[in-house]
């Protein structure tokens, strides 16, 4: 079902463009050019963030952090704590944890369902924030990180409650 979404969306875009009698090919090229320019601007931030995030992840400090946070985060099942910590930083790292959880506990276990819900309900807040703000050269982000992480935490708590009630 979801495999239809993108192709149909593209069909609608080109049909509507033809219907409005615009040169869709020329428009596509001019947009693509803009996209290239946009990418050019975000290459340095992506490189910078990937570098910092990878060093952080490779240092293995996450495992120590989990031990420290375990008493504070005791309401979160221990298996999904790495996910909760990694989720705002790195999308690929969280996916790796998620597939690890699936392979150990199975996708239909409580932990599997909970991890799936957490993955589906939040985003890589720190990464997105860094990328979006540095693409327009904003250095003062004010309370953005605080509110973003608060929303993530609420999402995780909501996931635990909803999954416990639902299944």
């Amino acid at each position: 079902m979801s495999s239809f979404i993108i192709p149909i969306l593209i069909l609608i875009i080109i049909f509507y463009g033809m219907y409005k009698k615009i040169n869709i090919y020329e428009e596509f090229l001019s947009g693509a050019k803009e996209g290239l320019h946009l990418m050019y601007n975000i290459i340095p931030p992506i490189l910078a963030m990937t570098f910092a995030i990878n060093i952080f992840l490779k240092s293995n400090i996450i495992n120590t952090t989990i031990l420290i946070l375990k008493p504070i985060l005791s309401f979160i099942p221990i298996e999904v704590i790495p996910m909760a910590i990694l989720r705002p930083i790195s999308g690929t790292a969280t996916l790796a944890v998620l597939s690890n959880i699936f392979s150990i506990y199975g996708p239909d276990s409580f932990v599997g369902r909970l991890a799936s819900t957490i993955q589906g309900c939040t985003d890589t807040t720190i990464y997105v924030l860094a990328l979006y703000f540095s693409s327009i050269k904003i250095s003062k982000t004010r309370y953005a990180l605080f509110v973003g992480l608060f929303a993530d935490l609420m999402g995780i708590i909501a996931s635990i409650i909803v999954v416990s009630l639902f299944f």
Partner: protein
Amino acid sequence: MVNIIWFILIAIGIIYSILTGNISLINDEIILSGKSAFNLIISMLEVTVLWMGLLKIAETSGLLNKFAKIISPILSKLFPDVPKNHESLDYISSNVAANMMGLGSAATPFGLKAMQSLQNININKKEASDAMITFLVLNTSGVTIIPTTVIALRLAYNSINPAEIIITSIIATIISSISGLTLDYLIRRHHR
């Protein structure tokens, strides 16, 4: 802020691995990091260029604007500082729509474009505007309706019902978004 995050990630990473005697891992990472960033950039490049092209068609033909009109009553409540019919609202609505359908990679170009046009109406170009923060909260609290990646991964691990987590995800997402937006609203009102 990004400045501090960047510093903390690198400083903690390197100092911690020196203390735990894992510095060789970090050495490898420093050398390989450019490569993994490059791979990410290449995979983002094709998606961004393609979707920016398609977005341009939708923009010129007026389709984007038509779509934005449908959700603009909600958006104008969330972004009181953005002038009505401003182009940034079109991009924001495209970003939200792409996120809703779980098309994260397609959502990013729209999001970047939205930030760019919000920057055009930003007074202090060094500082994030209220609208930018609201948009980021809306974006990162994840308004996903169909979490495609998760469903695909569950399917790969032989889940009996891969899509059963859609409803729990939607409920959790809504709670996360509403609490984020509420806090954002309270802070904004407090600042005035």
